[in-house]
Each structure stands twice: as structure tokens, then as C-alpha cells.
């Protein structure tokens, strides 16, 4: 203890920041149980118990936001989750190291871009009237009419998901490639002597070899089912697709900061945080029960 006084001294700054900015915000959660009026402050606003929650759970806008969030997160698991695995399997089969390295570097690029840039690029490419894709489709006679990629609900949802695949695929493959490289090479050699072809080796050695990684990451993804990324939704949103773009993060911003419904927005935020925490704990338990490494 005496010897390490200076180590404790070091800890003061990060602990101070954590307590001031993270724990300091928790007391503000009480406005979810109040009818908070910014003009009156905490002291002047009245306590209402669970009334705000009752109102929120009856709120149609909340239903839409919750449904959209869950639907998109599920769709993300189905569409985006397998892509890095497939990509890692393909990258692993490449024979020329230089080619592999250069293409990996290129595929990592989207990970370093902000959603502002990705959203702007999406609009440049997919606008109905001036977007590159529509221009090419029409000018080369591949389509008669311009396709409203970003202004029609279903089209927007598909574009949104595919842009997500584009943004996350290369980067996501890193973990799987690492898992593949730790598989014992002798297994492959033995399989080749036994006459197993490329697909058999992929199916019976590589995939089982990275199964623990797949399961761990899948469970982690499920733990984030309640999540909602404001920047991504904002960067790709527009008035025409409110019906699908309206998700929890948007609800909280619009009902809360933008229109002063602080209590209601804080209640939704608290709901989201608690369910999110429960999901993380449950998926961690689940992973450990399956004999995988947990994440907490």
C-alpha cells in the first residue's frame, strides 16, 4: 500500500473523469419519473412515478421506433453478420500474398470513414435524379425509369443495410482471419493426403475451427439488439423514409432535445439502457453456458 501511493495518485484523474461525466449523469435519470420542465429545474418539477413510462408504452411513435429498431437489428444479424465470415474464407484461399495484402488494405478503407462521409457518398451514388447508379442505369439502357433508392421505404431499408455491409465487411473479417490462421496446419495436410478437396477442407476444418469465434461474435451481436446508431440513421435519413428511419435514437433526439419532451425521452433512454444491459448479461451467460469465452 505504502509503496504504491503514486499508482493511486495516477488513478485519480481517470476515476474523476468517469465519476464526473458517467456517474454524474445517472442522477439525471430521475427525470424519467418526473414531469420535468426545463424552466423549473429538478427541484421545481413534480414526481409522477411510472406515469411517463405508461405514457411512453402507449405512444404510437414509440411503438414505431421500437419496432423499426428491432427489425433493423435483426435484419443486420442476417444480412451483415455472415459477410465477414464469407470474406475471410475467400481471402484465406488467395494464393498471392501481395495481392491478398493490398486487397485487405483496400477492404478496410470504409472502417475509417465517418458516417457523415458514408452518408454523403450514399447520396451521391443513389439519388434518384442525379445519383451515379441511376445515371448509369438510364444512360446505358439498363433501366427505363430511375429507381428511388433513398426515397421509398423498402428501397431505403435495403440500401441502408447494404451500405452497412459495405462499411463493416472488410474490418469484420480480421477477427475471423486471425482465427483461421491459428488452426493447426497439420489438419489441412492430413486432409489433403486423404484426398479432401478445397470445399471439403473449408467445410470440415476451417469452419469448425472458427466456430467458437463465430458463436462469440454472434452472441455479442445479439447483445446489441436494442442498440440504435444515431449518426448512421441521421446520415442516411430523409423526410421521405421517416416510416423506417424512425428508430429509438431518432425518437430520443426528436422527442427530447429537439422538442423539449425531456422526461419522455429520458424514460425511453432508460428503457433502452436497461434492456440493453439485460441482453448483454444474458448473452454473456449464454456464451459461457455453451463453453465459449464470455465477453464481460
Amino acid at each position, binding site marked *: 500500500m505504502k509503496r504504491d501511493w503514486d499508482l493511486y495518485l495516477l488513478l485519480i484523474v*481517470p476515476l474523476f473523469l468517469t465519476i464526473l461525466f458517467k456517474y454524474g449523469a445517472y442522477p*439525471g435519470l430521475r427525470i424519467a419519473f418526473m414531469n420535468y420542465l426545463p424552466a423549473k429545474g429538478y427541484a421545481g418539477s413534480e414526481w409522477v412515478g411510472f406515469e411517463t413510462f405508461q405514457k411512453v408504452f402507449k405512444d404510437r411513435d414509440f411503438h414505431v421506433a421500437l419496432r423499426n429498431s428491432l427489425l433493423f437489428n435483426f435484419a443486420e444479424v442476417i444480412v451483415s453478420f455472415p459477410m465477414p465470415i464469407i470474406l475471410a474464407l475467400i481471402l484465406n484461399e488467395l494464393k498471392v500474398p501481395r495481392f491478398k495484402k493490398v486487397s485487405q488494405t483496400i477492404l478496410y478503407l470504409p472502417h*475509417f470513414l465517418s458516417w457523415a462521409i458514408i452518408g454523403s457518398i450514399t447520396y451521391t451514388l443513389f439519388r434518384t435524379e442525379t445519383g451515379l447508379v441511376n445515371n448509369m442505369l438510364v444512360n446505358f439502357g439498363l433501366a427505363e425509369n430511375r429507381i428511388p433508392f433513398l426515397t421509398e421505404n423498402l428501397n431505403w431499408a435495403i440500401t441502408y443495410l447494404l451500405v452497412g455491409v459495405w462499411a463493416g465487411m472488410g474490418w469484420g473479417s480480421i477477427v475471423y482471419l486471425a482465427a483461421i490462421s491459428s488452426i493447426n496446419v497439420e489438419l489441412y495436410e492430413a486432409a489433403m493426403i486423404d484426398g479432401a478437396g478445397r470445399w471439403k477442407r473449408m467445410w470440415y476444418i476451417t469452419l469448425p475451427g472458427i466456430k467458437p469465434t463465430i458463436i462469440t461474435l454472434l452472441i455479442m451481436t445479439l447483445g446489441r439488439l436494442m442498440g440504435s446508431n444515431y449518426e448512421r440513421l441521421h446520415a442516411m435519413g430523409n423526410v421521405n423514409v421517416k416510416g423506417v428511419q424512425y428508430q429509438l435514437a431518432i425518437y430520443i433526439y426528436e422527442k427530447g432535445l429537439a422538442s423539449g419532451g425531456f422526461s419522455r425521452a429520458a424514460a425511453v433512454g432508460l428503457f433502452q439502457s436497461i434492456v440493453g444491459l439485460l441482453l448483454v448479461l444474458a448473452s454473456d451467460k449464454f456464451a459461457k453456458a455453451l463453453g465459449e469465452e464470455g465477453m464481460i
Partner: protein
Amino acid sequence: MWYNRRKSIIADYIMVLIIILLCSICLLPFIHLASKSISDNSFVLAKKVYFLPKGFNLEAYIVIFKDGQLTHSMLYSVLVTAVFTVLGSITTVMAAWPLSRRRLKGRIVFTFIIMFTMYFGAGLIPTYLLYNKLKMLNTMWVLILPLIFAPYNFLIMKTYFQSMIPDSLEESAYIDGASNTTILIRIVLPLSKPILATIALFLAVGRWNAYEDSKFFITKKSLHMIQYLLSMMVLSASEAEKISISEASLVTTTPEVIHAAAIMFVSIPVLCAYPFVQKYFVKGIMIGAIKG
């Protein structure tokens, strides 16, 4: 056997083809934007610009520099990011080094206090009210102080220290008379350059790219990060697509070309830097995946 061999070579080519296709999808948008940003307005309006510039025109970039908003915001964002990265790296070490030492009493409690905030956040509204009370709204510091110390970065650095700086190494330095401070500065930090680089880059790229806090906590335009400015420029135009086009025919530079130039302007720092820094990122997520 011979048949199989040929089939296998065809499969090789198909896979190379898929990878080339995917790489093109990553690069072509930028080639298009770059071409558009220096093309002649008439070709852009005629929707004839694909992946090569048509005509030559630097007007859009001149407009950006003359207007000054983006250039100002670029310098400001660099400043914020630099301060953020330096302070963030220091505070991360300050937590990760002590808490990586197994002998330290209370390390489990302190680590829990830090990590808990990663899994349970107060949410936007309480955070906003807190910053308001701290008088941080509409200051540069709201973009820096609350986020410099991140539990995830702390965890990665702590894991690295635990596995790379064994207690025995530290102990022998201590017996030789080195104080904790000397050990940290003379032994630990020089041995930890890769992880310091990784965390610094995590911090820098994270700060550079994030923009929702500019929207939530800042109303003064001069204090916005450049990413937010870009999103306002391009997105506000996207909602009124038709209007901006009819206006376009009146002025010398079309909004489309300006947007392309603005996107390029904001992307260029990242496009130039990322090939050199990505290896540190890969290292970081590998440590993050092992976790401690």
C-alpha cells in the same frame, strides 16, 4: 484428378474476381467523387461523369477555400482531435498501468467502476442536462473531456500491460531502487510503443469521425466538427433535391460539384493516413478480442 485440378484453378480465378469486385466497390465511389469534383459543370449537369473527369474545373475547390467555413472547420477539427488524442492517451495510461498490477489493492473495484459505464449509459437527455449544469454546452471542451477516457481503450491497454510487462520485470527494477514513476516512464512506456500508437490512433480516428455530439451539444457553427458540417451540407440538399438542381443552372458551380469537392476535401486526410495506420488498428482489435 486432372479434372479436379482444373476445377480448382477456375475456383481460384473466381475468388480473385470476387475480391477485385469488392475492392472496386470500396474505391470506385472515391474515383467518381474525385472525377466529379474537377469536372466541367456542363458534363455533370448532363449526368455524363462516371469514373473519369470530363473537362477540367477547379472552381469547386476555389469556392470551398474562399468560403472558408470548411477550411476553418478543418483546422479546428485537427486542433480538437490533437488535444483529444494527447489527453486521452495520457489518461488511459494513468488508469491502465496501475490497474494492470495484480498486487494493487482495490483493483477489482476500480476496474468494475470503470467498466460498468460501458454497459450502462445514462443516455442522451441526462447527459445533456449534466453538460448544461457544468456549463460545457457550446464549448470546445464538450467535444473533448467527456470522451477522452474510454473504458474500451482502457481495457485493451490494461490487457497489453498485463501480458507484456510481467510482475517479475517490475519487481527487479524495484529492488534495484527504481520508483514507480521511474518504472513507468523508463521501462513500461518504452516497451509499450505499439499499444500507445494503437490507442492514440483509436482516439484520433474516433474523435475525427464522430459528429453527433456536435449536433447535440453545440449550436455555434464555428465550434462544429467538420464531419457535422459536411453532413449538413449534403443532407440538407438531399431533402430538397429538385430545388437545388433548378437553382444550379443559375450559378456557375453546381451544388453537386461542390458537394463532391466537399466530400473529397473532408475525406482526403483519412484516405492519405489510413493505409499507414491500419496495421496498428489490427493489432488493437486483436488484443481487444483476447481481452483480460
